[in-house]
């Protein structure tokens, strides 16, 4: 973030006099420009967060007024609700499988395309396309069919339908996420292109091999972008909904193995009308994502290297 720059010293007294009233007016003008965002931030973000915190301590079904129950939603969630824990396990397993696989593939493809002379633009666009299509219901339905009994995977490997096997169903959802590696790949590629070529030339002169160059130049120079992708994809993975809904026909099965957190939250809040319970779940999710992000930021100090600190 840059701090607002002071205008250069006013060249003449009249000029300063002319400039002053607009500046005061600009403060007012700024709030006019900001007003939709301020309204949205207050009414659709801050107020709802406060309300959902309150509701998380109540029993509320949308029709009768909320009934204060203290910490009961939370204690029930953590100690009496096995489905809640299954949803936590499913979500964490999915995040831990899907995000590293997706980012690794994105990085490999970006490295392969980096020095390509012809066809780079084509491959970049073609690999990116699934990122736009993958979130749609259409593709989720295709996925369900391909991984179903008698689907492509069953025919190729004789594994039966993954959709009906606990563990495998989750992997099918994870593969749909991996399929959308194009978005982080495009970001990696842009980052790779910003690494100055002289660094590699110098390393070559010093006799560094490919692998050495990758470890000593590419990884540190790319680390801010790796970090950005890691945070973004992790946060997104925690919130995945459509594919799990489609693959499990909205139920999170088999045996709750694809009962993602958001799916269970939807089920509690909007199917079973336990809005208080769902609010408590939402707050736990918020805190968990906050903690995970904070941990990522904390560890980033030891492995993310910002070139601009030194030489800009």
């Amino acid at each position, binding site marked *: 973030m840059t701090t607002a720059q002071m205008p250069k010293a006013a060249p003449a007294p009249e000029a300063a006099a002319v400039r002053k009233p607009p500046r005061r007016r600009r403060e007012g003008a700024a709030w006019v420009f900001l007003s939709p965002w301020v309204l949205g931030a207050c009414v659709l973000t801050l107020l709802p967060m406060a309300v959902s915190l309150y509701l998380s301590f109540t029993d509320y079904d949308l029709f009768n007024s909320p009934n204060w129950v203290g910490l009961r939603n939370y204690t029930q969630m953590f100690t009496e609700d096995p489905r809640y824990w299954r949803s936590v396990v499913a979500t964490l397993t999915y995040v831990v499988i899907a995000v590293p696989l997706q980012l690794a593939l994105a990085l490999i493809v970006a490295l392969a395309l980096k020095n390509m002379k012809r066809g780079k633009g084509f491959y970049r666009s073609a690999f990116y396309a699934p990122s736009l299509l993958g979130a749609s219901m*259409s593709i989720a339905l295709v996925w369900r069919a*391909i991984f179903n009994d008698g689907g492509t995977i069953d025919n190729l490997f004789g594994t039966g339908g993954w959709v009906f096997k606990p563990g495998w169903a989750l992997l099918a959802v994870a593969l749909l996420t991996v399929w959308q590696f194009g978005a982080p790949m495009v970001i990696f590629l842009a980052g790779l292109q910003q690494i100055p070529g002289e660094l590699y030339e110098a390393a070559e002169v010093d006799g560094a091999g490919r692998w050495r160059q990758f470890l000593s130049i590419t990884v540190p120079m790319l680390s801010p972008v790796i970090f950005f992708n890691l945070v973004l994809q992790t946060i997104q993975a925690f919130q995945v909904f459509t594919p799990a809904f489609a693959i499990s026909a909205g139920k999170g099965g088999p045996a709750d193995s694809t009962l993602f957190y958001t799916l269970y939250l939807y089920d509690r809040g909007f199917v079973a009308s336990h809005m208080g319970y769902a609010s408590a779940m939402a707050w736990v999710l918020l805190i968990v994502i906050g903690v995970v992000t904070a941990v990522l930021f904390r560890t980033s100090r030891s492995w993310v290297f910002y070139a601009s600190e030194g030489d800009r």
Partner: protein
Amino acid sequence: MTTTTTSTPAVRMPVAWARAALHAGCLAALLVMLYPLAWLLATSLKPADEVIASLDLLPGRLEWSNYETALEGVNDISVGRLLGNSLLIAGGAVVGNVLSCSLAAYAFARLRFRFRGPLFAFMIATIMLPHHAVLIPQYIIFNQLGMVNTYWPLILPKFLATEAFFVFLIVQFMRGLPRELEEAARIDGCGPFRSFLLVILPLTRPALITTAIFTFIWTWNDFFTQLIYLFSPEKFTLTLALRSFVDASSTSAFGPMFAMSVIALLPIVLFFLAFQRFLVEGMANSGIKG
């Protein structure tokens, strides 16, 4: 471009081979990746008996009537109507996001006001805020306002710049514009409103187009919000109509179901083909300048 002329043929050969192998690898990966799309297109044209019996990807004969069945829609609501509903929501979201996000972005990028730093940090933080944390109270608010089962909950938030990602995107773009232009406009007597409208906005067009396309595609693909807020079939979107196939267990409806899926994907594919440069560049820049 060719390799340097000084290298001997013996050295050049492996380079050419490596390049060929790279292309072969990329093409193979591309084929695997495009398989689900090919499968979708093929299945949408398969007759019902071939869906299960035949393992071939390509249909034995083309069953165009799948598309005729699909066009009739779901629950007596035609695909034309569903498409119109989807377009209405996506269109409203695009107008809302472009307007509200560019206004807020201009203030953050160019104007000075109290608490600018903290407010900017807050705006960035809301990019990472999980939607579910605000979902239930938002639903309660819209329920109190009598707006559930209308399109307002899907469109109104976009007019209030709630998608901070786009504010950030436009801020980054505006910061790259030369300040001299506005200085000149100011000397010519333009206030902040006119210099926004006449100087900054036209120059910001690439970022606005990126915002518009991403908003369109994300809104088009959105399922969760629509699932919660819309329940009358005549208000359904294509996505919600497709959802009713999710529970269907028989494969006999496969042809029409995937014909409808193709129709639902078509706008995104067209947008992608028309604007891929903006999409890819927009995505690339989101990570670099941050």
